[in-house]
């Protein structure tokens, strides 16, 4: 078991190292940020002064070393555009992203799980077909379009909700719906397939043979077992919602981390892009590590196989 955990932690560090290297190199492929920080036609001397100021004149490996050394010591560098430490910007935006992600996740689970169970229990019938349409729309309609339609209908036409910004629960509703709908569809699909698999298992058949009421068979025996992969996916999706709700946050001018990432990309603000991506990656790696260890604790076959 100890060896298994050590190995998983090793893989996690390797993943983070590769992620940091990839994002470090990829943002630099987008071009020279100095060209966006001066006006068109600025002299080469002006551009060079900007490069020196932000350490972009250093060899790549030196820049990477500074990035990693700072990251390990809890410093993500200073934003080129906002001239503020990236960590400060990140923590300024984090509460907004947490609130949005938590609301969107609650919405997605409240819609996705019951509709997934209903579709599995009534497979091939109306509710199943309705669920499939719901999932198809949720997964295929672009969130910016959903967001704009919500704004136009609920904000401009009906005048019920504020169009953008943050601060009250009313500001939260539309972005949470726009963000949560996609994930609700994903959760619905997974719940449905997981429930179908469990409902066909021997122990569920046995429960029915024993004459247990259908509600107890579904609610107690099937649902609990079908829920495990859904919760795992929801955990990872929550991290994704927190860190990369770029489109929804931009459309609704929601001041979260997704919009910070959008701003970082727009202004070629390398420290912001690197910081947000690496923190997001670290969160996903940690969730995965936690789940892997938990699985191994629960299921001895996993640690023995490994």
């Amino acid at each position, binding site marked *: 078991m100890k060896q298994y955990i050590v190995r998983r932690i090793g893989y996690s560090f390797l993943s983070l190292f590769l992620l940091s290297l990839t994002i470090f190199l990829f943002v630099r492929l987008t*071009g020279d940020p100095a060209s966006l920080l001066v006006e*068109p036609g600025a002299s080469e001397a002006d551009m060079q002064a900007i490069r020196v100021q932000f350490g972009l004149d250093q060899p790549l490996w030196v820049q990477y070393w500074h990035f990693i050394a700072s990251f390990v010591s809890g410093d993500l560098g200073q934003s080129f555009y906002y001239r503020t430490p990236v960590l400060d910007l990140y923590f300024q935006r984090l509460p907004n992203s947490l609130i949005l992600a938590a609301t969107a996740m609650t919405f997605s689970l409240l819609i996705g799980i019951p509709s997934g169970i209903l579709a599995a229990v009534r497979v091939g019938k109306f509710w199943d077909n309705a669920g499939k349409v719901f999932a198809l729309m949720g997964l295929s309609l672009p969130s910016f379009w959903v967001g*704009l339609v919500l704004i*136009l209908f609920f904000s401009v036409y009906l005048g019920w909700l504020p169009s953008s910004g943050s601060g009250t629960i009313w500001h939260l509703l539309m972005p949470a719906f726009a963000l949560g709908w996609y994930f609700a569809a994903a959760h619905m699909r997974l719940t449905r397939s997981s429930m179908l698999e469990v409902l066909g298992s021997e122990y569920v058949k046995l429960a029915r043979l024993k004459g247990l009421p259908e509600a107890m068979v579904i609610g107690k025996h099937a649902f609990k077992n079908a829920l495990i992969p859904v919760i795992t996916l929801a955990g990872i999706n929550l991290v994704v919602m927190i860190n990369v709700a770029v489109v929804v946050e931009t459309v609704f001018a929601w*001041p979260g981390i997704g919009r910070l990432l959008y701003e970082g990309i727009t202004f070629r603000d390398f420290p912001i892009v690197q910081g947000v991506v690496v923190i997001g990656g670290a969160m996903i790696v940690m969730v995965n590590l936690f789940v892997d260890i938990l699985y191994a604790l629960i299921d001895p076959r996993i640690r023995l196989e490994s």
Partner: protein
Amino acid sequence: MFPHTTRRGVLGLAAASVLGSEARSAAAADSHITIASHVSLAPTWFDPAETAGIITPFLLMYAMHDAIAKAMPGNQMAPCLAESWTTTPDGLAYDFVLRPDVKFHNGETMTADDVKFSFERYRGASHDVMKERVAAVEITDKLRVRFRLKAPWPDFMTFYAAASGAGWIVPKKYVEQVGEDAFKKAPVGAGPYKFVSFTPGVELVLEAFEGYWRKAPSVKRLSFRVIPDESTRLAALQRGEVDMALSIRGELADEVTRTPGLSLKPTVGSAPYWIYFPEQWDPKSPWHDVRVRQAVNLAIDRETMNEALTLGHSHLTGSVFPENFDFYWQPPAPVHDPARAMQLLKEAGLGGGFDAGDYHCDSAYSNMAEVALNNLREVGIRVQLRPLERAAFFKAYAERKLKNLIQGASGAFGNAATRAEAFVVKGGTYVYGNYPDIDTLFAQQAREMDRAKRTDLLHRLQQAVHEKTIYAPIWQLSFISAVGPRVEQSGLGLIKGFVYPAPYEELTLKTRT
């Protein structure tokens, strides 16, 4: 629910019901204007020392700071913190008399010390050229300061007071006391509004400065809210959440005109757009023949382009020099004559048309390029569109890597001479070739201190640019903003060539009945 929903359709549905929203607007605090900004505000824009020679930072500079002289309604170089200035007969010194009793937001009084300090601290885009040419800044007394030049420089005021942040004054004592970084976090200036709070990427809040020397602003609080998406900005304006929305284009601008209570405020900035012929100096190129370049000029249907893309608000122009620039020469109005264009091509031996290669442009303006491409095809000039991301485009343009046709633009401040220096004469940043007669005119005007003679030289220079068809100018782009029903004076369009609301002390709200 929305079987055929389109953005336009839903907006249309919404329009009728929206602007009985006076009641909602009234919920907004009295004497408070919120401006929805299209760009994320940068703290470097709070500090005149770091201002690049582009227009965007001046959105905030006009609010928080003030300058020795700046563009104001009816005067492109209006005395502000300086009451007056004079030039010595030899052109080697400029003497400024400062306005007495001008207060900074922290209560300090502005003196010549602050003027000297602000100039020496300046490190923005024109830093090199100014430091190269200014020998010294001397404080004559508390309210008098002299700038000594190394050689006569007729464009000194253009650079000092218009094209840079060097003439925008910050309090020396405060900056030295708090340091450079802290100054950007809590800037203090001498402008009509003082800093209250800034949340990066979200909002900037300012408060009226009652001690502003020109007059106390009537609107007591000013907020800039960043709303990156254009449709959301318009929705916020329609709901009365904001009072002005900057940059509303195309069909959304059209929607503003159909929404009761909202008004469209198009402002033409100092940004002409053009088609450049980088191969005109190559005798083997078809662009070497002036008739082929003239054919391009005649082929572009500017009026249709203007109606389609900017609702007819852009100014069609025959010049790459902005019409609000000092020393501007008015060329003949551009003409759309495809028949004449085809005739010119025939005379040039290209009667059947020709494959003209690539048409390069900044991808943000590829909508203009698509119209131009169709116009060129109609007369037989076949080109392929090559849009590039903005930074990459300007980099390639400046490094002279682009061929065939380039759709360029510039919004840089300055005057006709500074524009010629960058785009026409030998060695200019965006110049792919040169004409000796034009270079000679440019050199002569650079030494000429007599304004009338200099004007004549620069007019001749611009006329030569026009006659040689170095460029096929398209238009001076209109920047379209929208204003809500509470605002009486938005400030938009008050200063010629300035596309943002200014001067802010002129902003007023309608009085409620």
